[in-house]
């Protein structure tokens, strides 16, 4: 993956498949400690301990179309090669939380990229799921909730192209207003 934002989109798709009704995505940057924290939490069906243990194995997958599952192994590798951490917590029936930290001062840190584009795709392609996105740069913070937008739209679908275009710009502008984020962005 060329951007961490693509890993975020990919890992969140697992929450979609798990039947989540709500997905929380946090992207928190601390410029003092050079730590970037990415958290994806859902209220989907969750997994038992044994399944969670097998996730980092690329040759484990629940899909039937092929025998490999690269999503989680790629995300884990992206975090750990910066000297960061990776954790999956899950409980059957309760949901799953994936937390990865990245050392942004590592030369091996993949650029964060366009997270807002991922959030927009996720929210508009999955009308039935409430997406709560928190983006923070040190003490500055922007919180987006797709449920609020849906309430305002009053039945007009989120995947209506003119709505998607509005949303994409709305997210980008609000994230940009947080100021300089990760260097090189």
């Amino acid at each position, binding site marked *: 993956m060329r951007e961490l934002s693509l890993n975020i*989109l990919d890992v969140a798709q697992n929450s979609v498949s798990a039947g989540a009704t709500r997905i929380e995505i946090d992207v928190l940057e601390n410029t003092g400690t050079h730590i970037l924290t990415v958290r994806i939490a859902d209220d989907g069906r969750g997994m038992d301990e044994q399944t969670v243990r097998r996730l980092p194995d690329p040759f484990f997958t629940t899909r039937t179309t092929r025998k490999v599952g*690269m999503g989680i192994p*790629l995300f884990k590798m992206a975090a750990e090669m910066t000297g960061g951490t990776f954790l999956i917590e899950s409980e059957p029936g309760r949901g799953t939380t994936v937390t990865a930290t990245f050392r942004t001062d590592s030369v091996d840190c993949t650029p964060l990229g366009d997270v807002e584009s991922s959030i927009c795709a996720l929210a508009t392609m999955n009308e039935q799921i409430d997406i709560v996105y928190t983006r923070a740069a040190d003490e500055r913070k922007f919180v987006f909730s797709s449920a609020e937008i849906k309430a*305002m739209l009053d*039945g007009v679908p989120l995947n209506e192209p003119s709505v998607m275009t*509005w949303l994409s710009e*709305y997210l980008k502008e609000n994230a940009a207003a947080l100021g300089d984020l990760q260097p090189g962005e």
Partner: protein
Amino acid sequence: MKSVEELLAIKNKVKGQMNVRSENGEDNIRVLVGMATCGIAAGARPVLNALVEEVAKRNLSNVYIAQTGCIGVCQYEPIVEIVEPGKEKVTYCKMTPEKAIRVVTDHIVNGKPVAEYTIGAVAK
């Protein structure tokens, strides 16, 4: 800065058009973008964005864009499928934002599938 008022204006405009169309209408065209790990890694997100922008720009009210999973031919991602009622599904592969725009103009607007981007032409 994008305002909530703008969103409400879009809502009212779309609501006005909604009477003349429905999700299961007979002339609806469905555009499916593969968004599994393989599709995302290959560049499905910019393709999706390009499709959305072009459809919005042209105000094509009978086009529905949705995501789909992995269809099992990861080497040909990003994949876009066009499903029109009464016609055979067309599968485009190795898509880019530029190709996506041409698919909207040639195929969706003018009804002429872009043969050279289809899986049949690319997978020879």
